[in-house]
């Protein structure tokens, strides 16, 4: 591909209110969407705000809406994202408050991990040093496998941006936090299940999911939060039935 070709890019400027600004960026082979944004910021308009760190799909900071779809921009090639007319339209993630241009406020999103009790809680017995022992988790056990399926989340917010239920109900814990909770439900070393299942059973919890699968379709890590949420629904039902039987 010749380097003289230009790519027409429209970039969101502003916050909740704003408008698109047009740029022409030299087209390069194997160019990523993040390369395009960086070219604009370095060569054309230093006031453009965006976020990235690792550039290799590990940190989860570079997600944006690219031609209407949420994507990790450092690992999205321009060639897979552009429409037939060769245009590229870049917007901040949906369902997040825009700080400026392509950078969004992630605090509420990360707080939902906490609200879903998406963190490891050691068993009570671990507080007694003499009781501590090495806990063996066989890699082939169903629980370990279920946790494995969801553990590689990089917290990019792509699923959160893709989920309509998040758009309808800002309290909804969302696919990422619920997926995280599900990995911990399957952690046999964890002692905080009662509180966790309580947290995900509330009115903003797993039952609100419509099984749209948007999250699963767009997750760049190939995680299926939809299935994790289905698992949580089963766990919630078992807990509720277990309670009434007791």
């Amino acid at each position, binding site marked *: 591909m010749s380097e003289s070709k230009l790519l027409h890019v429209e970039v969101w400027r502003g916050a909740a209110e704003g408008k698109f600004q047009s740029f022409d960026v030299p087209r390069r082979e194997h160019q990523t969407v993040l390369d395009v944004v960086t070219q604009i910021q370095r060569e054309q308009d230093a006031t453009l705000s965006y976020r990235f760190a690792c550039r290799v799909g590990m940190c989860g900071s570079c997600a944006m809406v690219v031609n209407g779809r949420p994507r990790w921009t450092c690992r999205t090639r321009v060639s897979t994202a552009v429409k037939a007319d060769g245009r590229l339209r870049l917007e901040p993630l949906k369902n997040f408050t825009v700080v400026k241009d392509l950078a969004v406020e992630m605090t509420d999103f990360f707080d939902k991990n906490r609200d879903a009790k998406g963190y490891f809680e050691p068993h009570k017995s671990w507080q007694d040093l003499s009781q501590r022992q090495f806990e063996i988790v066989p890699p082939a056990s169903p629980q370990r496998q279920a946790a494995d399926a969801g553990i590689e989340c990089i917290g990019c917010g792509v699923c959160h941006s893709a989920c309509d239920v998040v758009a309808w109900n800002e309290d909804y814990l969302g696919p990422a936090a619920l997926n995280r909770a599900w990995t911990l439900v399957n952690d046999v070393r964890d002692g905080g299940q009662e509180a966790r299942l309580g947290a995900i*059973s509330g009115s903003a919890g797993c039952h*609100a999911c419509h099984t749209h699968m948007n999250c699963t379709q767009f997750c760049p890590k190939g995680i299926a939060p939809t299935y994790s949420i289905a698992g949580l629904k089963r766990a*919630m039902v078992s*807990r509720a039935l277990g309670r009434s039987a007791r």
Partner: protein
Amino acid sequence: MTAALFIAQRLSAAVLAFAVTVHLATILYAVRTGLTAEEVLGRTRENVWFLAFYLLFVLAIAIHAPIGLRNIAREWTNWRGRSLDVALAIVAVVLLLLGVRAALAVYLPIAMYLR
């Protein structure tokens, strides 16, 4: 509470999947074989199986529909809390009463329904 509603919603959906199928099949049968109202009532009156089936059907509707409406209201409007729950409890009772009345109407041997 949420978990209980979720379970009630799923269980009633399972009942409805069965009941709606039977209900539609029965309607098709009655229409296609050209049964008169009198013939239909001849089969439904004092038929406890028929009554039991429709009471179950009505109960499933009265559980399923309000929970679904509650979810829709909570997603599409700002209506939450006690007033919403009370309003939908009323919907449930109304559905139940109307449904039971309809089932009894074709079950009870009351001549006035034959006019």
